[in-house]
């Protein structure tokens, strides 16, 4: 593995060597040092509401069964039979009391416990040869849940999830905790694009600058109330803890008026008032900033927007929320998993229209997403060559040559972290700084796991 010190130094001064978006050596390091350590989103509890429900999700190439066991506990188990390594679950989702390996018939309860081992006595000499008691599918080294969002880390010594999220949790709540019961997550749509995973994560973290151009078509067809996408520059960009995002500036008004402007019905506004902290309410009601796109390092993004979803003459808009993951496949390929999220207590009619808004804007068919991915595929293919090893992309928007900001951070912003108004690549730089820090930190080295009682 080559020395990447110079690459990381360039990234930190805001000059990004273009090849990092398509480089097998960098990707090998990312797999080991970013995805071998970070908290990675795998599922939401609402996807597995009943005992026995499960979904199968990956962290890069590691497959995990995320299940709810008979006592209601959510678990993530490495999807590999302890015996010969067969996947014990080959479906993507379902409900099961047990998972039985198709190879030799070893079976596991939905909490991971090994309960069936054919010919245990004859083949192994019973417990003396293979200690079945207490054996389980390998659990994810670390598992954490926040607002029902289930994350795993491959590092057994990962800091607690809440600590990892840090102040980003303040913003995560605005998407995923609009009432005490939180969201239900629907989906995902999954598709593979020939693009590097970092591009989407950086874009959602802070690229409000691309909206007026990349997405001009959706404004032209009248999907939004605001006639100009350049309104994006009035929003604030914030970075806090392990993530950052973009916001829209709402027109003047009270908290209720501003939330109504976004399209929330009064009953949902009442629940937001009862659920959000004073500071969260002030950010929307007093500061007038409403969350839009965001990313949590390394590869979870969120988006919130409010298009017109019916052909009526009125200006009625309906907000939607999407969670999405940029699941790395290789240096030049990413699987996108895109979910629709909606507050569990929202009126049914709102849920229907919000779902429609999501489908029109994001996901495999979304009119925003379509144009984003075209850009990202093109960047990735161009980043493979030798010229891309010479070109350092300018990622310094918002900074002067002496590293002073073009305009100072917002003095009055109710959310935690640092926020700026106007276009700037503050968050893309923060994202890549976190990436650089991870890449230069030696990977965790958890010991091997032996099974069956041999010591």
């Amino acid at each position: 593995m080559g020395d990447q010190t110079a690459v990381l130094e360039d990234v930190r001064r805001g000059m990004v060597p273009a090849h990092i978006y398509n480089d097998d050596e960098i990707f090998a390091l990312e797999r080991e040092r970013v995805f071998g350590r970070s908290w990675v989103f795998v599922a939401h509890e609402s996807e597995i509401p009943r005992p026995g429900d499960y979904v199968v999700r990956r962290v890069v190439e590691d497959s995990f069964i995320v299940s709810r066991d008979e006592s209601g506990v959510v678990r993530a188990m490495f999807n590999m039979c302890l015996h010969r390594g067969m996947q014990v679950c080959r479906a993507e989702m379902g409900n099961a009391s047990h998972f039985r390996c198709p190879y030799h018939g070893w079976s596991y309860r939905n909490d991971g416990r090994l309960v069936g081992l054919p010919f245990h006595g004859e083949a192994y000499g019973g417990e003396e040869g293979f200690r079945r008691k207490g054996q389980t599918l390998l659990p994810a080294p670390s598992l954490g849940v926040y607002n029902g969002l289930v994350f795993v880390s491959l590092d057994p010594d990962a800091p607690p999830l809440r600590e990892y999220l840090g102040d980003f949790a303040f913003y995560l709540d605005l998407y995923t905790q609009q009432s005490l019961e939180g969201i239900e997550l629907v989906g995902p749509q999954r598709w593979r694009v020939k693009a590097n995973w970092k591009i989407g994560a950086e874009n959602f973290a802070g690229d409000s600058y691309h909206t007026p151009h990349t997405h001009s078509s959706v404004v032209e067809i009248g999907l939004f109330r605001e006639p100009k996408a350049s309104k994006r520059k009035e929003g604030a960009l914030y970075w806090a803890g392990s993530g950052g995002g973009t916001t829209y500036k709402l027109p003047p008004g009270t908290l209720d008026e501003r939330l109504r402007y976004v399209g929330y019905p009064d009953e949902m506004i009442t629940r937001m008032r009862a659920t959000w902290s004073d500071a969260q309410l002030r950010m929307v009601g007093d500061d007038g900033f409403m969350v839009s796109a965001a990313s949590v390092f390394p590869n979870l993004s969120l988006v919130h927007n409010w298009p017109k979803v019916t052909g009526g003459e009125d200006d009625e808009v309906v907000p939607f929320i999407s969670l999405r993951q940029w699941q790395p496949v290789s240096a030049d390929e990413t699987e996108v998993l895109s979910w629709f999220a909606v507050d569990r207590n929202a009126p049914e009619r709102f849920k229907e229209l919000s779902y429609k808004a999501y489908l029109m804007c994001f996901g495999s068919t979304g009119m925003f997403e379509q144009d984003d991915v075209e850009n990202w595929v093109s960047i990735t293919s161009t980043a493979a060559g030798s010229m891309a090893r010479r070109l350092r992309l300018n990622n310094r928007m918002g900074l002067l040559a002496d590293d002073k900001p073009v305009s100072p951070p917002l003095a009055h912003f109710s959310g935690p972290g640092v926020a700026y108004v106007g276009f700037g690549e503050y968050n893309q730089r923060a994202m890549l700084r976190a990436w650089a820090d991870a890449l230069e930190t030696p990977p965790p080295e958890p010991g091997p796991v032996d099974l069956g009682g041999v010591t």
Partner: protein
Amino acid sequence: MSTLAPTPRTINRCLPFGDARHLEAHQFLVDEAALLDTQDYDTWLSLLTEDVRYLAPVRVTTARGAGFDTAPGMAHFDEDHYALSRRVARFATEHAWTEDPPSRLRHHVSNVRTFALDHTDDEVIVESAVLLFRSRGDVREPSIISAGREDRLRRDPARRVPSVGHWMLAARTVSLDESVLRTQNLAIFL
């Protein structure tokens, strides 16, 4: 077992291939494929009824016997006329980058079967298979999307729509044959 994939129908209820309604339905699908290949979406939209429903559920891998093979509550497309009209309007702008330059598209339509309905002669159900070949740029890997379709065709009551037999598309369910799509997006129609 499939909840939203085309319902297996009994062979004897399928119209004979020489039946005029089958011939018209088949021609509708082939003519439509030509419109989709050339991205003549305004004409395509004129063949859809005002109450059209255009649905492409997300397929998921489930155990045999699970009783479902689509993601509950999620689709790639779940469109009414307004939503489709916005998509078509977007392609008509000069800023729909994902299809500029346009993909080279070929919709291969086959396995067409037409089913009469008891209560009306002005509607039929048509099953078909579609294989979409999509090539973008000069050297990118092409993508192939395979799907089954179940359509409801309805005759234009005013007999004005210029399709043979004045048929219009009133509903389509696209049953994609992949769980994880291998194409950069669905900025196309199936």
